[in-house]
């Protein structure tokens, strides 16, 4: 169990999609499909919709928040986002989504060493107080869950 800080609190669970490389959602996330489209990024071509997306922080363009807002409205956003610090771009999109549409998703900051232990395909459950429960999932279970 990892004790994280709920930057925006909420409950979520799902399969992790993890990279230690930051991502700009503008030019990096297709809000129509939930696909990661930054061709230089290790998660390129992965579908992040409904996943627990773990990235250290967002990068580059200030349009990242607007793209995440579109994704939340369209239902193509991740189920939750884990970062290593308070990512203001992700936080803003979620706060505006709750203001505009009454929907939210958890954004939790976790310590860097705990972040480093996360791997794509792990099953993650997030509690409203920022607790992050991680269970390893085997390759077979992984494809079943997908």
């Amino acid at each position, binding site marked *: 169990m990892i004790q994280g800080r709920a930057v925006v609190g909420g409950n979520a669970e799902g399969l992790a999609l993890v990279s230690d490389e930051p991502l700009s959602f503008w030019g990096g996330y297709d809000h129509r499909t939930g696909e990661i489209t930054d061709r230089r990024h290790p998660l390129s071509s992965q579908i992040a919709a409904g996943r627990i997306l773990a990235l250290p922080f967002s990068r580059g363009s200030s349009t990242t928040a607007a793209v995440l807002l579109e994704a939340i409205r369209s239902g193509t956003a991740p189920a939750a986002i884990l970062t290593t610090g308070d990512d*203001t771009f992700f936080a803003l999109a979620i706060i505006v989504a709750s203001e505009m549409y009454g929907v939210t998703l958890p954004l939790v900051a976790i310590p860097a060493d705990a972040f480093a232990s996360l791997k794509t395909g792990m099953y993650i459950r997030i509690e409203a107080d920022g607790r992050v429960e991680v269970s390893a999932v085997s390759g077979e279970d992984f494809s079943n869950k997908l």
Partner: protein
Amino acid sequence: MLTGEHGPAAQMAMSILSRMAVIYGAEELLDISGAHIDSTIYIGDAGLEYAERLAELGARVAVPTTLNVSGLDERHWQEWSVPAEWASKAYRQMVAYQSMGAVPTWTCAPYQTELKPAFGQQIAWGESNAIVFANSVIGARTERYPDLLDICCAITGRAPAAGLHLERNRAGDILFRLVDVPPKLQADDSFYPVLGHLLGKIAQERIPVVDGLGATPTEDQLKALGAAAASSGAVALFHIVGVTPEAPTMDTAFHGRQPQRVVEITLSQLRAARAELTSAEGTGLDMVVLGSPHFSLAEFRQLAPLLYGRTRHPNVEFLVTSSRAMVMLAEQAGYLAELESFGGKVTVDTCILATPMLPPHIRTLMTNSAKYAYYAPGLLNTQITFGSLEDCVRSAELGRIVRDESLWRG
């Protein structure tokens, strides 16, 4: 404002801003005296609904406010492949922000307009390249504001007292020392976007300090450096010792402290960074595109003589993206005639990344902009080659990619 005595729009803006201030770790809000709004870019229905909600609630900006690129070149969009539905929604978003009393500058280079901020001024700016320029080259003070929040700051006239608004957070983190970089290369325009790309990759969200620059860069070279560093990383402030206003000396740049890390920048690293800005293979070319950030009057002046007496290859489009004000000045100065006789076009108020203007047969691009080079593959699903301004003009004339490698050989 939270209780609504300034009207429902200010109440909504303050509600978002005050929740965000907690996340920024701010103990209070501070007064700003300028804003630049990046939320103008039409991305989809949510951003449009947000703008129209604020406008319907009677939002007015409380401080002088400029507007970033929109999702539409109002006058020329029909010459390109912009879908009519996109045009109509992007236009509604423009109308919504203009109705709030902001100045319709429609540019990502507001620091090259009359409305640019002054040294030490507290501002709330969106648009990564504008943020890094305002902080680094002018010495104005803004945090790296995301879309949607920039307008909340403009409506309330307030910003969280945190981050780069505060003197103590503006010290350099990482020292980049140039070694073995030939002076001839440092004098060349194409050096700056490549250096910026490398700085951003290594510094990420920290503050880089560059030492050992032999040349005195122009405003447009610093613009290119910042835009590159804010694309490959989250750089919102850089210092160049002896060049930028908060770095008269190395000691001042680091606020009297030691750098966290020292990185030596060599010609071979720069060559590798330059190679990363090219995704295309081969010499095929469909379009040359210049102007991210938006082309300045000085850049139009530099381009015009390169085009003189030449014409583009019939299979290669040649496009410059800029603001309507800058294009008007360039026209009056006589720089547009050369562009027209070359067969080039101009798009204003937006850029190829912010409006779906490119027809599907445009597959391979060439540019002198690290920002275009960085984002085109993901946003436009095209291949791109980075080159100097001269390389771009020659390639457009010949109809295939040619690059002068002599400066990069050392």
